[in-house]
C-alpha cells in the first residue's frame, strides 16, 4: 500500500496532481482510491487530496489516509505542510514549496505567519529520524522558468517527490500520466517544468 497526501490552498492544483498520481498507479494495474475536501473549504481554504494505491495487490478500503501512514506528503504551501505533518509515516518523504500564501486573516493577526519559520520548524521536526525533508524553493524555480510556470508547481512537486525513490513509481510513469491527464496545450510546459525541478531537487 502506498499513501500520498497532497496539501495546498484552493486554486493551486492539488486535485489535478492527485489525478495524475492515480493514473500512474492505475497504469500499473493497482487498485486506487482518492478523496478530496471540496465544498465550503474551497473558497480560500486548505485543500487536501488523499491518494491510496494497492501496490502489493491488496484491497484498498478507506478513501482517506490514516494519520501516521502517508509515504509521501506533498505540500504546495509550507503552512499546509505543517498542518499535514501528523500524516507522515516513519521513513516518509515530505516535499514542500517554501512560499507562503497569506490568508485574509493574516493582515489582522497579531502573530505574523512567516514561511521561513515554518520551513525551519519542519526541518527541526524531521531531523534525525528516518524521514526525508525536501524544501523546494518554488520562487527560484518560477524565476528560472518564467511566471507562467506557477501553474506547474503541482506537477513539479509531485515529480520531485517521486524522484526521491522512496515509493515504487518512476519519474517516467509520472510523465506519461501527465500526458494522459493534462490538457494537450499544457503538456509540454509541465514536462519542461518537471525536468527542471527534478534536475534541481531530484
Amino acid at each position: 500500500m502506498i499513501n500520498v497526501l497532497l496539501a495546498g490552498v484552493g486554486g493551486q492544483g492539488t486535485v489535478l496532481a492527485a489525478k495524475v498520481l492515480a493514473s500512474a498507479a492505475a497504469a500499473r494495474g493497482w487498485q486506487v482510491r482518492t478523496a478530496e475536501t471540496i465544498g465550503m473549504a474551497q473558497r480560500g481554504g486548505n485543500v487536501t487530496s488523499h491518494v491510496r494505491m494497492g501496490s502489493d495487490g491488496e484491497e484498498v478500503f478507506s478513501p482517506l489516509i490514516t494519520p501516521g501512514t502517508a509515504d509521501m506528503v506533498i505540500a504546495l504551501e509550507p503552512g499546509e505542510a505543517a498542518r499535514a505533518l501528523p500524516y507522515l509515516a516513519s521513513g516518509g518523504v515530505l516535499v514542500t514549496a517554501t512560499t507562503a500564501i497569506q490568508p485574509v486573516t493574516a493582515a489582522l493577526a497579531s502573530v505574523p505567519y512567516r514561511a521561513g519559520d515554518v520551513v525551519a520548524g519542519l526541518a527541526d521536526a524531521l531531523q534525525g529520524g528516518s524521514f526525508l525533508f525536501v524544501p523546494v524553493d518554488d520562487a527560484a524555480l518560477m524565476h528560472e522558468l518564467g511566471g507562467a510556470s506557477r501553474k506547474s508547481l503541482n506537477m513539479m512537486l509531485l515529480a520531485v517527490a517521486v524522484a526521491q525513490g522512496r515509493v515504487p513509481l518512476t519519474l517516467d510513469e509520472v510523465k506519461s500520466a501527465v500526458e494522459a491527464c493534462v490538457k494537450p496545450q499544457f503538456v509540454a510546459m509541465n514536462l519542461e517544468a518537471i525536468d527542471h525541478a527534478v534536475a534541481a531537487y531530484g
Partner: protein
Amino acid sequence: MAKKLLMGNEAFAHAALEAGVNVVAGYPGTPSSELVETVAKLHADGAARDVHVEWSTNEKAALEVLAGASYCGARALFTCKQVGLNVASDALMSLNYVGVRGGCVLFVADDPGPISSQTEQDTRRFAAFAKVPVLDPSTPDEGFAMMKAAFDLSERYDTPVIVRPTTRICHASTFFEVEPETHGRPLPEDGFQKNPKWVIFPKRAYEGHGQINRRLARIAWDYDNDPALARFNQVVEGGGEGAPRVGIVTGGVSSAYAREALALIEREAAAADLSVPAWRLLAVGTPYPFPAETAAAFAEGLTDVIVFEELDSVLEEEMLKLAGVRHLSLRVHGKLTGAANDRGENTAEGIAGRLGRFFDRTSGTDGLADLAARTIGANHLSYEGPLPVRPPVLCAGCPHRGSFYAVKQALRGREAVLCGDIGCYTLGNAQPLDAVDTCLCMGAGITMAQGFAVAEPGKKQVAFVGDSTFFASAITGIANAVYNGHDVTFAILDNATTAMTGSQPHPGTGVTLMGERRRPIVIEEVLHGLGVQHIGFANPHSLEGSVAAARAAIDFEGPSAIIFRAPCIQLKKPDAPVVINAEACTGCKKCITAIGCPGIGFDAARRGPKSGERGQAFVDESLCDGCSLCAQVCPFGAIEGAPKAAEEGGAR
C-alpha cells in the same frame, strides 16, 4: 468499455444512465450536485441519449416532476442533499402511498461532520419515517451497483427507493468501467393509465398504507435472500483462532474505516506479539427495512457487538431490537452506550482506538487499547508555531461584499436585524462585514425578518437572499410580507448564478441544462407581480449609488426591495488590479478592517511619506479582481482603480 477515474457522484450518474434513466431532476447542494451536472455534460457531449435532465426550482418541484414522469413508466432520478429532502418531503410522503410505475430513485447525499450543511440529519432515519427502502453504499463502487439495483427494486414493488451516500462516498474517486454511450429505456407504449389509485383520498391512503407494509416485509426478505440485494450485506471474519464471540456492525463509509482499522490493529498486534480475538463483521448496505435474518445469522454465537455508523444510531437500534425480539444474550455497544461517536464523522484511527478498548473489555485481551492509542493515527511529529487559519471567505471582487457594506452604511445609527440565508452570502457573517445576524434554512431570512418586524417594530429588518434562493424558496415569503403588510426590506443579491454549489443555472438565467435558452424570469417583474411597491436597483461595485439605493428602500414604509446586480466573479474576466499609491497610503488599514477582501494585505515593512513607520497595504495581484470597492472605501484616495460606476446596476 473505457476505464475512467470518476468521483462517486460522476459514477452514480453513469450508473443511472446505464440503467436507462429517462428523467433526472434535482436542486444543487453539496455533496450531491455533481450527479446532475455529469448527466447534463454527458447529454451535451452526445454520450447520454434519450434523457431529460433539469435543475428544478427546488427539491419539491423536482420530485413532483419525476412523480409525473414515473406514472408514465419513465425511469426517474431525483437528487438533493439531505436537507433538500425536507423540502421535498411533502411530495415523498404521499408518493410512497400512491406508489410509482417507472423506477423512481431518490439520490439523497448526507453530510456527516457536517462539512457544508446546516444539520446532521440521517436520511436512513427519514427513509424509515417515510417507509421507503434505502440503500447505503460503503464505497463509490458499491454505490454504482446500488444505483442500478435501486431502479429494479423500485419497479419490482412500485416503491420509491432512496440511495443515500455520504460526503466521503460522493467525493471519493476510483476507476470505473463505463459504457461509452447510453440510451434512456423506451417508454411503455400504453403510456399513463388513468386509475383512481393515483388520487390520494383518505380511503386510498389507508389502502396504500397496507401496500407499503406488505412490500416492506417482502423487501426485507429480498435484502436477506435475493443475491442482487443480499450482496450489499457482507459478513467477513478475521482475527485469532476459534469461533468469534465478538462482532462489529458497520454502515456506509464506516464499513471501509472499520476494515482499515482492523487491518491496522492486526498488523500492529503481530509486530508487538499481541493476539487479536476472532471477530466477525457485518457491513449493512440495506439499512431499511432492516435485514433481520442476515443480522441474526451474523449474531449467532456472539456475546458482544459494537456498531460503527455515522449520524444516528440506526443500525445500533436495529441490533437492540433484534436482541430483544429473539431473546439473544447479546450486548450491543455503540453511540447509545458511549462506545462510538455520537455525532460527526468517523475515522479509521478513531475506530481502531475504540475497537482496541472493545476487544480488551469483551475478549479479555490485554493491551490492544494501549497499542492502538500508541501506534495508530499518530507519528509524534508536531509544529508548534502559529499556522494561518483559512476560513472560507467571499472571493476578492465578490459583488456581495459591496452589497453588505452598502446596507450597513445605509443603516448607520439605526438599530437593525440582518437576516441571512443559504448561499455564498452566508459568508457575510464573517468579520469585518459582520452583516448576517441569522441563518436558518433556504428562504427563511425573508420570512424571519417579518417575525422580527412584528416582535420588535422599532428596529429595521433587512433580509438578504441570492437569486437562486429567491426562486427556490423566497417567493411565498415575499407574498406573505405583502399580504400581511410587514415593513421589511429584501436585499436580493443577484449574481446571475447559483454560486455556492459551483455556478449552476437557475430560472433567472434563462439557460437550462438541456442547452436551451429562453426568456429569463426577471426578479423585479416577480416582485412587481407580488405587489412590492418599492423596488430599487444598485451595482454593488458602486458604493455611493448602493448606499443611496439601500437607504431609499429601508426608508420606505412597507415591504420594499433592492436588487444588487453584478455577476459572480467566476462568470467574468477579471479587471485590471487596483494599485496602492505608496505616496498616499497612510497605513490606516481602513481598506482591510472595513471590507476584509482577500486581495488586500498589510505589509509592516513598507514605507511611504504618509505612513511613516506604520507600514502600508498591498494588493495581491493574483487575487484582485479589480472591482475597486477598496478604492471607494479608502479615505485618502490612496487606491487607484477604474471605478465601475459606468455600469450602474439597473432593471433587466
